[in-house]
C-alpha cells in the first residue's frame, strides 16, 4: 500500500508540473462552474415562471365563474412540469419534451414550450450542462492525463529503474490509477460541494422526494464511469509501444464511445422501429374513435347502443324520462372510449420508444458513455421514462377533471338543459390542484438495469484487463 501511495504522490507531483494538464483542469473547472451557474439560473427562472403560471392557472380555474360543467371541461386548465433541482446538473430531455400542457375534454394536447424550439441547431445538440462536462469532456482530460502513464516510463527508461527497485507492476498500475482519480476528485469535489449547497438551499422535495438517494447514486455512477476511463486509459498505455500510439488509440476510442456508437445506435433504432409522424398518429386516433377499433362500431352505433342500454336499465321509453341527464352519460362514455383508443395508440408509441431505447441500452455494453448518459438522465428525472410518467399523470388528471364535470352534468342537470344549468366554485374546488411527484429513484434504477449491468461489466472488464496485463507485462530492453 505504501508503494502505491508513493507512486500516486509522484504521479500527482508530475501532473501538477505539466502545464497542459493544469490548463485542461482549469478549463474543466471553469466549464463546470459555467454549466452550474447557467443551470442554476435556468432552473431558478423556469421554476419561478412555472410556479407563478401554476398559481395563476389554479386561480383562473377556481374563479372562472358559474357555468355549465361541460363548458368548464372545455375551458380546461394548464398543468406544468415542475423543474427539479437535479435538472440543473443534467438537462436531459427536458429541452425537447416540453414543460406545460393544456388539459380539456376530448383532446390530449401536445406538450408546449419546448426550450429546444427556441434554440439554434448548434445549441440544440450541444448545450453545456455539467453532465456533458462529466460524460464527454472529463474523459478527454483523463486521456491527456493517462495516455503516457506507461509509454513515457518506457520511453524515458524510468520503468527499468522502477522495476530494478524490486517492485512489481501491480502497485505501479494502481498507484497511477489512484493518482489520476485523486486529481479528478480535486477537480470535481468543489463542484459537488457547490451543487450540494445549492440543492440544500432550494427546497425541492415536492416534486422529487428522494433527492438525497438520487444524488448518492449519481455521484457513485459518475465515479465508477470516470474510474473505468482512467483504468482503460492506463491499460491502453500499457499495451501501446509509444505515447503517440496510445494517444491515437484513446482518442479513437473516445470518438467511438462519444459520437459514432451513440449516433449509430440512434440511427439503428429509428430504422428498425420508425415512429409515425404526429399527423398520422393523431389521424389514426381520430379514425379509431370515429369508426371504432374494429372499424364496424362507429360513434353513432356506440351511442345508439348506450341509449338502448339506459332505456332498458331504467325501463323507460325516452331519454327525457331518465332520472339523469343522458347527455352527461353519453359524453363520459364517449370520453372513456376516446381514452381507451388513445391509450392503445399511446402504448404502441411508447413501445416503439422503448424498443429504440433498448438498442441504446444494449449498446452501453460497447460504450460506457451510453450507460452513464441514460442513468444520469434517469436519476435527474429528465429522461423519457419520467417524461412519460408525467404525461400519464397529467392525462389521469385530465380524465378525472372531465369525469367530475360529466358526472355533475349527468347527476344535476336535465336532458336538453345545456345553457340553463350552471355549476359553481364548489364543483371547481372538487378538482384538486395538480401536484406532480416523480417516480422513486429505486424504480428509475430498475428501469435502467441494463445500463447498471453494463457499467458493472465495464468495471470488471477493465479490472481483468489490468490484472492480466500486469502479469504479462514485459520490459522492452
Amino acid at each position, binding site marked *: 500500500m*505504501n*508503494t502505491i501511495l*508513493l*507512486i500516486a*504522490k*509522484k504521479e500527482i*507531483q*508530475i501532473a501538477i*508540473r*505539466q502545464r497542459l494538464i493544469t490548463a485542461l483542469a482549469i478549463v474543466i473547472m471553469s466549464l463546470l462552474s459555467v454549466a452550474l451557474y447557467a443551470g442554476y439560473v435556468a432552473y431558478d427562472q423556469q421554476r419561478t415562471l412555472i410556479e407563478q403560471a401554476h398559481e395563476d392557472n389554479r386561480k383562473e380555474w377556481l374563479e372562472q365563474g358559474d357555468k355549465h360543467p361541460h363548458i368548464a371541461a372545455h375551458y380546461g386548465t394548464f398543468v406544468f412540469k415542475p423543474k427539479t433541482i437535479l435538472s440543473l446538473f443534467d438537462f436531459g430531455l427536458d429541452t425537447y419534451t416540453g414543460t406545460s400542457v393544456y388539459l380539456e375534454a376530448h383532446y390530449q394536447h401536445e406538450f408546449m414550450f419546448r426550450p429546444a424550439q427556441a434554440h439554434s441547431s448548434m445549441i440544440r445538440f450541444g448545450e453545456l450542462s455539467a453532465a456533458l462536462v462529466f460524460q464527454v469532456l472529463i474523459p478527454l482530460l483523463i486521456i491527456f492525463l493517462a495516455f503516457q502513464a506507461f509509454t513515457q516510463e518506457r520511453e*524515458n*527508461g*524510468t520503468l*527499468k*529503474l*522502477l*522495476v*530494478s*527497485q*524490486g*517492485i512489481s507492476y501491480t502497485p505501479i498500475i494502481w498507484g497511477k490509477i489512484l493518482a489520476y482519480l485523486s486529481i479528478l476528485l480535486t477537480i470535481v469535489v468543489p463542484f459537488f460541494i457547490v451543487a450540494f449547497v445549492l440543492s440544500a438551499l432550494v427546497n425541492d422535495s415536492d416534486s422529487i422526494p428522494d433527492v438525497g438517494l438520487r444524488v448518492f447514486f449519481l455521484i457513485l455512477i459518475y465515479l465508477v464511469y470516470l474510474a473505468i476511463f482512467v483504468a482503460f486509459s492506463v491499460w491502453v498505455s500499457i499495451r501501446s509501444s509509444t505515447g503517440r500510439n496510445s494517444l491515437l488509440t484513446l482518442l479513437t476510442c473516445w470518438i467511438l464511445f462519444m459520437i459514432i456508437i451513440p449516433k449509430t445506435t440512434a440511427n439503428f433504432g429509428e430504422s428498425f422501429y420508425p415512429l409515425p409522424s404526429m399527423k398520422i398518429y393523431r389521424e389514426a386516433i381520430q379514425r379509431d374513435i370515429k369508426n371504432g377499433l374494429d372499424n364496424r362500431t362507429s360513434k353513432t352505433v356506440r351511442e345508439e347502443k348506450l341509449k338502448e342500454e339506459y332505456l332498458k336499465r331504467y325501463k323507460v321509453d325516452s331519454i327525457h324520462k331518465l332520472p339523469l341527464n343522458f347527455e352527461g352519460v353519453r359524453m363520459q362514455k364517449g370520453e372513456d372510449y376516446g381514452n381507451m383508443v388513445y391509450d392503445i395508440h399511446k402504448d404502441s408509441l411508447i413501445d416503439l420508444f422503448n424498443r429504440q431505447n433498448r438498442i441504446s441500452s444494449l449498446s452501453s455494453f460497447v460504450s460506457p458513455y451510453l450507460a452513464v448518459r441514460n442513468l444520469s438522465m434517469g436519476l435527474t428525472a429528465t429522461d423519457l421514462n419520467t417524461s412519460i410518467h408525467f404525461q400519464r399523470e397529467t392525462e389521469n388528471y385530465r380524465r378525472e377533471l372531465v369525469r367530475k364535470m360529466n358526472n355533475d352534468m349527468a347527476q344535476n342537470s336535465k336532458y336538453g338543459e345545456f345553457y340553463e344549468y350552471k355549476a359553481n366554485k364548489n364543483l371547481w374546488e372538487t378538482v384538486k390542484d395538480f401536484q406532480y411527484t416523480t417516480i422513486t429513484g429505486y424504480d428509475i434504477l430498475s428501469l435502467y438495469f441494463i445500463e447498471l449491468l453494463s457499467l458493472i461489466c465495464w468495471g470488471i472488464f477493465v479490472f481483468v484487463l489490468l490484472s492480466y496485463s500486469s502479469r504479462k507485462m514485459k*520490459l522492452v*530492453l
Partner: protein
Amino acid sequence: MLETIDLTKKYGDFTALNSLNLKIKEGEIFCLLGANGAGKSTTINLFLNFIKATHGKAMINGMDVSKHVKETKQMLSYIPENLMLYKNLTGLENLRFFCGLGGKNQSKDELVDLLEESGLQTDFIHKRVSSYSKGMRQKVGIALARARGAKVLLLDEPTSGLDPKASNEFSELLLSMKERGVTTLMATHDLFRAKDTGTHIGIMKEGVLLEKFESKDVSFQDLERLYLKHMHN
C-alpha cells in the same frame, strides 16, 4: 556475493550468453569488457531479472535472482548507460521517491548530504532533473545506491558519453563504494576505466567469457593488446 552458474540466454537460434560461470566476491569491482553484442548487458539484465535465463542461474548472496526477486533487488542498485530520472522532479525528489520504494525513509537533510557527497552541486539539488547533465544523473544514481544501502552495484556502460572529468569523478565514487564493501559488476567499453577502477576484468565476445584476470596483473598496454587480440580473432 555475485555468482553465475552456466548462465545461458538464447533468443531463438541466437545465443546471447553462453554458459557463463562467474564469481565476484564482496568489495570487488568486476569489469566486463567486450564489443556490442558480447553479452555484457545480457548478463546484467539477467542479474536484474529483467529477462529469464534459458539455462543456468544468476545468484546474489547465494540467492537465485529468479526465485528471490524482491530480496535480491533490495540488495542491488542499478545504473544504466543513461540513467533516466523523472524530469519534472528535482534530484532530491527523485532520490526521496526511489528510496521510499526501497522502504528507506531518510530525512531531507540526510538525502541532501548524500547528494552532495556523491558530487552533485548544491544548487542543482533542488532543480528539476530536466536541467541535469548525464554525469549529474549518474551522481544521483550513486546517491541512490548509497541511500538504499545497496550491497551490489550493477552498472551498464555508466561512463559512456561522460567527459573525462565526470568520468573520473564517477570512478572515484565507485572506489569509495568499494571501500564500503559494495560489490560492483560493470559492463563497459572503456579499457582505461576498467583498468583504473576494476579489481577484476573479464573479456567477453559473442556471449562467451573468454578470459578473466585481476586488473593488477596486467598493464594498460597488455590489457589493450589482449582485448584487441580477442576482438580480431
